[in-house]
């Protein structure tokens, strides 16, 4: 797994960090919300598209 946050030190032995929480930090956003895929598209296609 690639670490996305290299500023913070890696976990060393004995640290109280569970394996389910890899030490990744929040990255910078890439897309605008409007550019993301919405379930509305799925619903329109499933229920309201021309057959």
């Amino acid at each position, binding site marked *: 797994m690639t670490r996305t946050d290299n500023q913070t030190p890696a976990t060393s032995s004995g640290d109280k960090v569970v394996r389910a929480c890899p030490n990744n930090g*929040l*990255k910078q956003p*890439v897309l605008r*919300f409007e550019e993301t895929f*919405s379930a509305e598209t799925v619903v*329109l296609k499933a*229920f*309201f598209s021309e057959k």
Partner: protein
Amino acid sequence: MVEFTKFEELDDRDFFVAFVEEYYKSGWPAANKAGGAAVALEGDLINLAYDTYQLSLQSYKVALHSKNPDHYKRAGALLHALYKTQPIVSISWGADVERLLNAENVGVSYDDAQHWDDFVSWWDQYSNYVMAFDLAFRCCQVYEDAARPYDKDVLDNMAYYMAENTNINVGSFVTILKAFMAP
């Protein structure tokens, strides 16, 4: 119009409540227009969702050196909070839909009624889960390099999974989102 640009914005209670409320009510303009459904939300439940979301984030922060959970964890915590609190308390349908649901009405075929019954039943049963998944999935996608489309099979599976299991934890949602998005 409340615009989401990054997860840090959801740490503000007023933004969180306004964003969720607006998205649930008008985030699907085309589908709402075609389907004629209007949802009613309970403000106290959205506030409870904020508290639940923050609690999950804090749980992650204490285990992270960075003290800054990544977007999978934040989106998972958001999905979990909305799945737990279920802020949609009722759905009202327009008069047209009520008419189309009954094949005995003039001009309504059996197929019409069947089709609308499918949609109304699906939305009545799954609206809270579908909206929660959609909102969290979209917020998560903001941090990906491209949009991640999916089909109705995925949406149905997620909705059914949430409807049938009342005690899904944050980690399960994080795993699902990460498995779907991560290259």
